[in-house]
């Protein structure tokens, strides 16, 4: 209906009449029904297909700042570098400090600086991995920006999200930040060497994690003492093996 004179703007119901204003076309309603994350999800699916073809097992490491993601990577790379070929993507708001620590282990690494951004997205990762020879890589580790909230929503094309929780953060983090622990396949409780000095109830922490995600797998370790690292390495080796089999890449093609 025309707001100036009240006449219908369409159809034969409008009797012939004259006035001194133009009828604006009425706004049209377009049905969209598109997820806000649809574009990221499309790019992540592209990354995933690329990783699948190359037969590379991909993990997205997420946690609060200071939980020990980089230290876990450093120790893992130093101890497994002989058996497995790694590549690492480091995400931080600024500096290349983490990339320098990884480069010191001899593993190829790319640093992404997100500036004001609080998470990595599939587009950034797609470009970062262009630098790697994925066909000659067994395991790609993506260390996300330290943040227990935002990275949960952004698929990067990984096989699994691995959420680290250090014992100094408190056992109730899975309840407080449920999105991340629901999105994760594996929770690693890190810095267990500090357990004698603090009030952290391991059983309660495991229960809290299962309350938000009954299927979550849980490992406990200390990157400092080395306790529990063997179980983590077994978990990685199993993932690499399964990915090779699923992608049809024969293991001898991957072995240097």
């Amino acid at each position, binding site marked *: 209906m025309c707001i100036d004179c009240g006449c219908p703007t369409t159809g034969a119901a409008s009797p012939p009449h004259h006035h001194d204003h133009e009828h*604006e*076309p009425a*706004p*049209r*309603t*377009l*049905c*969209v*029904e*598109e*997820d*806000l*994350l*649809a*574009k*990221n999800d499309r790019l992540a699916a592209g990354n995933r297909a690329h990783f699948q073809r190359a037969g590379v097992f991909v993990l997205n490491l997420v946690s609060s700042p200071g939980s020990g993601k980089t230290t876990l990577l450093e120790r893992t790379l130093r101890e497994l570098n002989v058996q497995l070929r790694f590549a690492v993507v480091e995400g931080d708001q600024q500096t290349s400090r983490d990339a320098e620590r990884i480069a010191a282990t001899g593993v190829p690494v790319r640093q992404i600086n997100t500036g*004001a*951004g*609080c*998470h990595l*997205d599939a587009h950034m990762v797609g470009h970062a991995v262009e630098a790697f020879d994925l066909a000659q890589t067994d395991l790609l580790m993506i260390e996300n920006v330290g943040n227990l*909230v*935002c990275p*949960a*929503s*952004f698929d990067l094309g990984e096989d699994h999200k691995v959420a680290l929780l250090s014992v100094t953060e408190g056992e109730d983090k899975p309840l407080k930040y*449920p*999105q991340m622990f*629901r999105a994760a396949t594996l929770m690693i409780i890190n810095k267990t060497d500090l357990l004698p000095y603090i009030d952290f109830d391991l059983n309660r922490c495991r229960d809290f994690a*299962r*309350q*938000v*995600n*009954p299927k979550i797998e849980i490992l406990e370790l200390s990157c400092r003492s080395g306790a529990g690292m063997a179980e983590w390495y077994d978990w990685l080796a199993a993932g690499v093996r399964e990915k090779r089999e699923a992608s049809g890449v024969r293991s001898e093609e991957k072995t240097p």
Partner: protein
Amino acid sequence: MHELSLTQSLVEIAEEHARRAGGTVIRGITLEVGELSGAVPEALEFAFDVCSRGTLAEGATLTIRRVPGHGRCAVCAAETVCHELTAVCPVCGALGFELDTGTELRVLELEVD
């Protein structure tokens, strides 16, 4: 504050659909935001003012429909609202609760000229 990147996607999606339909101005956008989606409606509104500047969506009215969390328990079969992301059934306490709504983050419709 991943609402900023979500809102950039919102504006991109809206512009793309409007252009495809031959629209030149976006008057309104209706968005569905689940209460357990991890996005804060107020932060989306705030970011929209900034992200829509200089686009077809500048000045558009952003209508946010909030969707409450709701799910069903696989153990006791209760169907109930739920205000937390959890697998614990609010009725029987078993670890069998599965959400069916509450995580939406979706552009529903546009008003375009």
